[in-house]
């Protein structure tokens, strides 16, 4: 696993001292302008990326017969709102959105906090066994979800947490990626001198964390928060085991909607649209930051 984590680091040597403008100047020389063909190919890819999402809105407003017509329809119509209303009746999508906001919000706050604390310790504090513990964290990233769900299910059944949101929140707070991400950031961004200065000033360890570490860590915490929220909102496997459609997250509600008891495709598509829209709106607003965050170093959830 160590080879895994070190490999991409080698791929991207850290130009830590290079100032932004200098770097841009260097890139401008290197990078050739794109020709029309490049724009066409990229435009086509962008279209393919966005089209299925747009099609959800079209399919949500048409009957099956209309969808199969030649040429097929390419604009949604007013039936969209009727079908959204029907989808909200068939599946508790309003409740699901509220639940997803609560679940993803709690997971985000908890994960960012735990990851920053542990990431700081692994980056800057030397304590006995720190290397072994970090190895354990990194190794966890390749363990499949399947390996944990049977005992977790038994556990939440015994605690009578099935259908309660904490059953989804608590196990999902464990983010090995978050710890590793914060560690990598802080070991470079936080100078030892700063910690030493805080200690000289007589700041307690906790005080040092809040007044020195957190301000430095803030950009990375923001990136981690965005990625964690997205992953938590879209999480599928554990929520469909821990929750039922009685008290679902969006993904559980969508799985129920697509699970066969609604025969009308337009209603399923309408539900999909409503369930996906909140995160897509957030994505359009914060898209640039999320792209930047992933390019700085993201790993599949």
């Amino acid at each position: 696993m160590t080879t895994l984590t070190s490999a991409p680091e080698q791929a991207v040597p850290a130009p830590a001292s290079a100032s932004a403008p200098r770097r841009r100047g260097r890139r401008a020389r290197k990078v050739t302008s794109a020709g029309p063909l490049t724009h066409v190919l990229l435009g086509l890819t962008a279209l393919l990326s966005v089209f299925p999402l747009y099609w959800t809105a079209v399919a949500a407003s048409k009957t099956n017969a209309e969808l199969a017509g030649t040429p097929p329809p390419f604009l949604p119509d007013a039936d969209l709102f009727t079908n959204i209303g029907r989808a909200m009746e068939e599946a508790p999508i309003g409740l699901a959105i509220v639940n997803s906001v609560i679940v993803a919000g709690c997971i985000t706050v908890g994960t960012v906090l735990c990851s920053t604390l542990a990431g700081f310790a692994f980056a800057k504090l030397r304590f006995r066994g720190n290397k072994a513990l970090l190895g354990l964290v990194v190794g966890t990233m390749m363990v499949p979800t399947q390996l944990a769900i049977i005992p977790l299910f038994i556990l939440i059944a015994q605690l009578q947490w099935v259908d309660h949101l904490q059953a989804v929140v608590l196990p999902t707070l464990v983010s090995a990626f978050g710890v590793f991400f914060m560690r990598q950031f802080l070991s470079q961004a936080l100078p030892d001198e700063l910690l030493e200065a805080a200690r000289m000033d007589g700041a307690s360890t906790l005080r040092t964390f809040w007044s020195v570490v957190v301000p430095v860590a803030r950009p990375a915490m923001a990136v981690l928060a965005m990625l964690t929220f997205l992953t938590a909102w879209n999480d599928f496997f554990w929520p469909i085991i821990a929750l039922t459609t009685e008290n679902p997250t969006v993904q559980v509600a969508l799985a129920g909607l697509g699970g066969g008891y609604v025969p009308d495709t337009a209603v399923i598509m309408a539900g999909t649209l409503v369930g996906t829209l909140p995160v897509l709106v957030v994505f359009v607003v914060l898209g640039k930051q999320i792209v930047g965050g992933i390019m700085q170093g993201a790993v599949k959830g």
Partner: protein
Amino acid sequence: MTIASDDPRVAAAAAPPPSAPPAPATAARRRRSRLTRNRWGYAYVAPFFVLFAAFSLYPFLYTAYISLHEVRLSDIDGAVFVGFGNYTELLQNEFFWNAARNTLTIGILSTVPQLAIALGLAHLLNYRLRGRTFFRVAMLMPYATSIAAATLVFAQLFGHDYGLINTLLEAVGFDRIDWESGTWTSQIAISVIVTWRWTGYNALIYLAAMQAIPNDLYEAATLDGASRWQQFLHVTVPALKPTILFTIVVSTIGAVQLFGEPLLFSGNGMTSGGVSNQYQTLGLLMYDQGWTNFRLGQAAATAWTMFLIILVVVGIAGLIARRRARAER
């Protein structure tokens, strides 16, 4: 896992103003020893490790324990020790081999095109580009879409009678395809969903690595008269090898666990992966064993087998990386 602080802008923004003049050597030594003996480290990692122990480590071990027992979901306390019985039964089970085969073929059908397209896209995105933020954000939209939403939409698009894809096929003179019922067609359709969701994401990972390739290499290649394509093949791709290996490993870990797409693609929420199990993956089989047939021991054995498969893949990747590192030295 290219790292946050590799971006000079973030590092610059985050780095505090230069602090006091460099401490004398003795102070540095004292500081190091102070940091070395910092017991506060345990307090900082404690919140993570308490959660980790309760919700990861304990379940992993308990799953191993369960995999050696015959356990029913209805009677968890009535576990009977069967040794490696669940594993030997699994290896003799045709459903296991079917699921393993399906996981492999869907894994190849989704990972290979996904990474190849991503590499090409990253190359295009690396040109000086008008509207580059737009292209990047648009390409990442599928990543922001959930598995459930993506699968429901694509199940509609691949529908036999009303799906847009069949409508288009018919318009250009082909017959309608029953995507869901065929083995290859259903696996291709599921692979399309996976590819759609992950290609843009991987393109951005490759793009980040490409931007770190030193310009001198390209200048030298240009002087040698290399065309753009040759530069891509002989400069870009070799420089990206560690990143490519990394994305292969991450995609493979994802492919072994594939679950949501085959579960929802059927349109009836069944765990069988089609009427003849034509797209039942290992993830789906495990869920089927545990939550449809209530045989937890079998499901746990399948889960551990999946983990062992991942370990083998990661081990092979590690060997390749180490051998290359040695060759370069």
